[in-house]
């Protein structure tokens, strides 16, 4: 009981932030699955979703704003794919990754310009920010809602991947890009859908994340984005359940590290975890080994 009393707040915080990382990580893992691209701009799409919410809420009602934010993220994501990734699809992999880094740089700097470099306060969503007590710990409602919502969304996503035609096409493309296109699958459509799902989930993640940590500045997306990516690698990049599991592990571990006084290393710890997993099982928890073709 004493243990729980001490550690419950950290675990709760870890689960909440883990769920939010999970929603971002799905975007990374799916895009990587299809395009073999670390979409470095994904974290910034997440940040922009938060930023747009700040501007929308001043004139529009909450629910409309949330829907618009999700739409915005989807449009932003697919546009980036069309402009910055699609033309480079046949180029060497390094070029497309550099393009992703360039987009990330642009999104951050544009946010810097729009906000004037100031931190914006995320609008209070009463439902999410209400304080609740669980045993000895007091926390925000969003902490409780996040894991359930995350798991629900992931369940829906897995159903989609498993049982719909587009889901099947996605699996096929992730298996073998070229053969799939020869088989008559519309690759562009699959990629667009992937970005739609990834960015939509990131937008939902941004609502949850920024309701919990209410400051948004141009760099707000960088660290969560990086951690979500690590979560995706941890779980075996390409695997949706793996990414979710990885995200929860990283969220909880990070908070426990902070709780034990190693606060200097709370971010670095994520990377230590990453390097350990890459050394022990380079393909992550759920990833599958494969063979280089000679």
């Amino acid at each position, binding site marked *: 009981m004493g243990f729980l009393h*001490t550690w419950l707040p950290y675990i709760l915080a870890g689960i909440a932030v883990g769920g939010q990382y999970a929603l971002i990580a799905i975007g990374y893992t799916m895009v990587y699955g299809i395009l073999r691209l670390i979409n470095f701009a994904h974290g910034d799409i997440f940040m922009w979703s938060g930023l747009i919410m700040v501007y929308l809420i001043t004139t529009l009602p909450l629910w409309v704003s949330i829907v618009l934010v999700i739409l915005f993220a989807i449009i932003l994501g697919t546009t980036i794919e069309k402009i910055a990734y699609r033309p480079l699809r046949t180029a060497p992999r390094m070029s497309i990754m550099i393009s992703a880094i360039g987009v990330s740089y642009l999104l951050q700097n544009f946010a810097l310009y729009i906000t004037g470099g100031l931190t914006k*306060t995320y609008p209070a969503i009463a439902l999410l920010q209400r304080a609740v007590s669980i045993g000895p710990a007091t926390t925000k409602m969003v902490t409780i809602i996040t894991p359930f919502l995350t798991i629900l969304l992931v369940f829906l996503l897995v159903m989609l991947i498993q049982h719909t035609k587009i889901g099947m096409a996605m699996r096929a493309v992730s298996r073998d890009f070229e053969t799939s296109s020869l088989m008559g699958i519309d690759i562009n459509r699959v990629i667009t859908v992937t970005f739609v799902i990834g960015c939509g989930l990131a937008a939902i993640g941004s609502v949850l994340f920024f309701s919990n*940590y209410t400051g948004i500045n141009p*760099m707000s997306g960088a*660290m969560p984005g990086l951690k979500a990516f690590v979560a995706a690698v941890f779980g075996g990049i390409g695997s949706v359940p793996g990414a979710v599991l990885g995200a929860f592990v990283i969220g909880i571990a990070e908070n426990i590290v902070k709780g034990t006084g190693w*606060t200097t290393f*709370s*971010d670095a710890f994520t990377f230590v975890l990453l390097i350990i997993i890459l050394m022990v099982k380079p393909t992550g928890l759920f990833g599958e080994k494969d063979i280089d073709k000679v």
Partner: protein
Amino acid sequence: MKKFTVLSLILLLAMTAFVGCGGSGSDEDTIRIGVFEPASGDNGAGGKQEVLGMQYANSIQPTVEIGDKEYNVELVIVDNESDNSKAVTAAQNLVSKDVSIVLGSYGSGVSIAAADTFSEAGMPAIGVSCTNPQVTADCDEYFRICFLDPFQGTVLANYAYENGMRKAYCLSKLGDDYSVGLVNYFVEAFKNLGGEVVQEQFPDKNSDFTSYVANAKKAGCDVFFSPVSTEAAALIIDQAEAQALGMPILAGDTWDSNVITGAAKGKNVEVVVTTFYQEGGNPEFDKGIKAWMEEDSDAITNNGGNTDLAAVTALGHDAYFVALEAFKAAGSKDPADVLKALPSLKVTGLVCGDVSFNKTGDANKSEAFVKRCDTTTGTWEFVKKQSAN
């Protein structure tokens, strides 16, 4: 073909840039004051508020008479991005724009980083709200018009101890000279008084303060001392409310900002800060600057959306007038002459109290204002004047 376009573009850029830069600088009737402040990054909000004070001062007093000649005063503003590595080039940029004196910065880290640049160029600089002792300690060119962290730390420790707090949780940001320094001086003073402390640091770009608040509760502290940037402050206040922190949050001058009052409004938290200026201390100034801001929507945006005054704005205003006095005393706009005139300068009639410099170039200040946030109205209420003894 491609190469040609790129190269000609580059050449064009280079040439025009030279022309563009070379064109300015020989205007006889203008005197330039360099403003070395962050407009982005961690301290962007504070930096902008500080610049507002200077701009307002410039609007009410746009000229200065040196000898018998009247000069127009022009502010040359450069963004140091709250980043120590960008600060050096930003400072060099200012120096190269033929300014006569530099004002700033808001934060200590960038000022320390730029000190050598100013020193090499023989450029006098007046720190506005950079409170870390290292800014002026080894730099003859740097002066400042605010109090110092050892003083502020002691004041805060005294306040805490006098109000029955015995165990303090101190949170600073990694790599931030201001918060690390102030926490250090606070801890020293608080321990001397017989208090007990728990110290922690959070990394750059951190936005999750849940665990730090939980740590403070776990350790059973009486006060949460976190003199960090306003960005982090809003997040800390938020978490304190969410987890029912149950102890007052104590901070230094950076927190004297409408960002904090905005964040704390309607929340069940107690926020106490020490600062340079209390709104209402000089009604004429308050009224003037508010009217000025209301005319300019950009100014309101830069002030964070309303006209609530931050102490740094008042300090910025004062810095501008100190600079004008320095010109008058020097009788010249040559940086070397201004530098010679500064040590013996005495300026009165400022909003944050008279300014004179001691041997290291720091202003002689003996009192700080203690303010508490009224969470129902979202404004600051004056508590007391606190001294170091």
